[in-house]
């Protein structure tokens, strides 16, 4: 929330001494409000005034960093409730949970399974970014540390899910440089846990039996000066977890309740134990509604494919359409003699068209033009998908050198380009494809 010039003036020293370079404190305050100068240009603002100002101008939700080196990732920092208002900035991260109650073979299998999901989708690496390591008191402290050690080298950010201070300390000792999340503060142990987290320089995760206890513990931790926090959505029921995630986010963004303004952890593994499909549904629910980290029992390709696609969609900039890399996409085992189709680089167009082409089973070369990431008609209207741009693109990419087939299908919506393309690209037979992607299967099959 931006402070107004007048609010700053109220806090100013009102000496009008001009040392800041402005004629009056009022003028200076106005410039600070516009962001034109820094408050530090005046040597006389009291520390209290500066603190009050930084509090008032602080973002509603804290930006929290976890992990180290190339595994460092950013959570929170959101400024809105709905993506059409402004981009959601820091995507949901996913974790798979393991427990010190599991034997080595189970843990190894789980780690292998989660590491198996690792692929790229429109320039983004899709993988399970975190491992949640749950402490089982029955199998003891040593076993916990052993398990933490075992998974620490897997290139994933760890969440140390342990509310026992001594055990947590021992576990931190073996992995703190990798900046795990110490997920173990509660209403009873928060002072000791906070000390531990602060000393190790790691983020502290906070639990509460209900929203009130959670809120009070967060407030108490803030009072201790620890604002490097994340909170756990209540695990008593799906309903309670959803209520915490939504209500805290709303309170932070809409009501400037800063104590609620931390990233959230939602443990769907606890909420739907043993029911992998319900967990899949909840992974999706908490991606749409305000989970910063979501923990599940397993994330295989079945859960991941829709989930990561959904996340990529939801966290995209509403002003900037998603683009795919221009070039030749060979579909259904196409080779240089297979028929060519061309369209724009708008990600949605690409996905819909390539999906239909795959469904047809017909080998074909899909040639994606550089059209500014716009849809067919929009890019055509903007002159970014024209006969000249297509001809130029074919030349630059040396399509004729790479593909021998000279049949090129163009989207039905730009059928007008046919004549111009035939003139500009001699030797090519230009075929007008259907207007809608769903008709492509029939179109390709009929042509064969």
């Amino acid at each position, binding site marked *: 929330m931006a402070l107004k010039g007048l609010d700053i003036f109220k806090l100013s020293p009102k000496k009008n001494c001009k040392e800041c370079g402005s004629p009056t404190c009022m003028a200076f305050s106005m410039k600070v409000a516009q962001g034109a100068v820094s408050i530090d240009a005046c040597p006389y603002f009291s520390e209290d005034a500066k603190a009050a100002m930084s509090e008032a101008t602080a973002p509603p939700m804290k930006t929290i960093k976890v992990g180290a080196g190339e595994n460092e990732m950013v959570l929170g920092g959101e400024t809105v409730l*709905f*993506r*059409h208002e402004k981009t959601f900035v820091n995507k949901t991260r996913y974790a798979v949970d393991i427990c010190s109650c599991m034997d080595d073979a189970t843990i190894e299998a789980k780690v292998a399974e989660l590491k*198996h999901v690792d692929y790229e989708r429109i320039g983004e690496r899709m993988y399970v970014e975190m491992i949640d390591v749950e402490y089982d008191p029955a199998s003891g402290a040593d076993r916990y540390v052993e398990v933490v050690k075992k998974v620490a080298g897997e290139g994933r950010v760890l969440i140390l899910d342990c509310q026992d201070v001594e055990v947590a300390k021992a576990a931190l000792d073996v992995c703190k440089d990798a900046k795990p999340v110490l997920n173990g503060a509660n209403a009873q142990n928060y002072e000791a846990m906070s000390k531990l987290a602060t000393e190790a320089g790691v983020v502290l995760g906070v639990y509460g039996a209900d*929203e*009130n206890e*959670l*809120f*009070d513990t967060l*407030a108490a931790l803030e009072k201790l000066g620890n604002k490097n926090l994340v909170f756990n959505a209540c695990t008593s*029921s*799906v*309903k309670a977890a*959803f*209520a915490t995630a*939504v*209500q805290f986010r*709303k*309170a932070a963004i*809409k*009501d400037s309740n800063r104590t*609620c303004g931390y990233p959230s952890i939602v443990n769907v593994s606890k909420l739907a134990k043993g*029911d*992998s*499909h*319900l967990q*899949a*549904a*909840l*992974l*999706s*629910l908490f*991606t*749409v*509604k305000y989970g910063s980290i979501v923990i599940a029992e397993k994330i*295989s*390709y*079945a*859960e991941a*494919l*829709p*989930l*990561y*696609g*959904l996340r*990529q*969609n*939801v966290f*995209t900039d*509403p002003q900037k359409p998603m683009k795919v890399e221009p070039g030749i996409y060979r579909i259904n085992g196409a080779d240089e003699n297979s028929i060519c189709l061309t369209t724009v680089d708008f*990600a*949605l167009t690409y*996905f*819909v068209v390539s*999906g239909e082409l*795959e*469904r047809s089973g017909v080998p074909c070369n899909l040639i994606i033009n550089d059209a500014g990431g716009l849809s067919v008609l929009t890019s055509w209207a903007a002159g970014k998908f024209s006969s000249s741009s297509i001809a130029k693109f074919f030349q630059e990419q040396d399509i004729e050198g790479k593909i021998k087939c000279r049949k090129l299908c163009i989207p039905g919506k730009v059928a007008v380009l046919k004549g111009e393309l035939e003139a500009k690209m001699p030797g090519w037979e230009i075929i007008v494809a259907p207007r809608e992607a*769903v*008709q492509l299967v*029939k179109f390709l099959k009929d042509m064969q």
Partner: protein
Amino acid sequence: MPFTAKSGKFSASINTLTMGTGEKAIVLGGENVLPFYTFDAPIENAPKVGIEITDGGLEAEPECVKKYYEGCETIVDMAKKAATFEGVDFLSIHLEGGDPNGENKPTEELIKIVKEVAEAVDLPIVISGCKNVEKDSEIFAKASEVLSGKNAVMLAAKEENYKNVGASAGLAYKQIVGAESADDINLAKQLNVLLTQLGVDAKSIVMNVGTAAAGYGYEYVVSTMDRIKAAALQQGDATLQMPIITPVASETWGIKESIATEEDMPEWGDQEARGIDMEVETAAADLASGSNAVILKHPVSVATISKMIKALV
């Protein structure tokens, strides 16, 4: 100091709409809060889950769905079986075979199916068209007639055929008119206005405001629904207060994540699990964004989503 949240209850609410008749009738909408925000105010009518069968019968179903209909010889058998699956609130008969660019089945043949199914099950019925606007006008007119008095949903009228569908389904036979637009709040609003100007009761309109499988331009679905719910509840825009119904199955069972076999994509693993999770995750996102009803295909998806809804409301 306990946590105090400001209530997000609105003075406006979503229209209530009854589908079907008798004991199995269901009510959509009525809430004055955002989806599943029961902490702001109670949600009386939880979102509903429908199961889809098609005129193609068992043969047209994905391999992994077939086993659930074992022993079914006709579409009527399938409908009866579908009605017994856990979590099913209503039945959608998807007449995709009517498409002139596809199988082009005659309307009479499709209507015969509709009639037989409706006589065999007492669940509320949705008739999902073939997407060809001319053919759909014909199908919905005839289906509305044979389903007279059943409070069925005709899914859906579009900008190109709303006059025909509105007149037959809405005016002549008092069925529920589905209004379909593609991911654009203004188009959704315009279609509702046009239908009501035609004389269709605003309270018997249900919207399909666009849908996509998760990952396939889903951001438009979320933002369109977010905006529509904000307009309906926060701004009290009566032309957008209709409940939303979202066909999920027809989107998710055609994409590669669901149809690629294990031989095609060995690293992706079990095909059935992929199909279910794609359907379930898309449906969960739809419901979180504002759908009052979703239409699914796989019985496990239906049971799962129904369970999620019960846990949230």
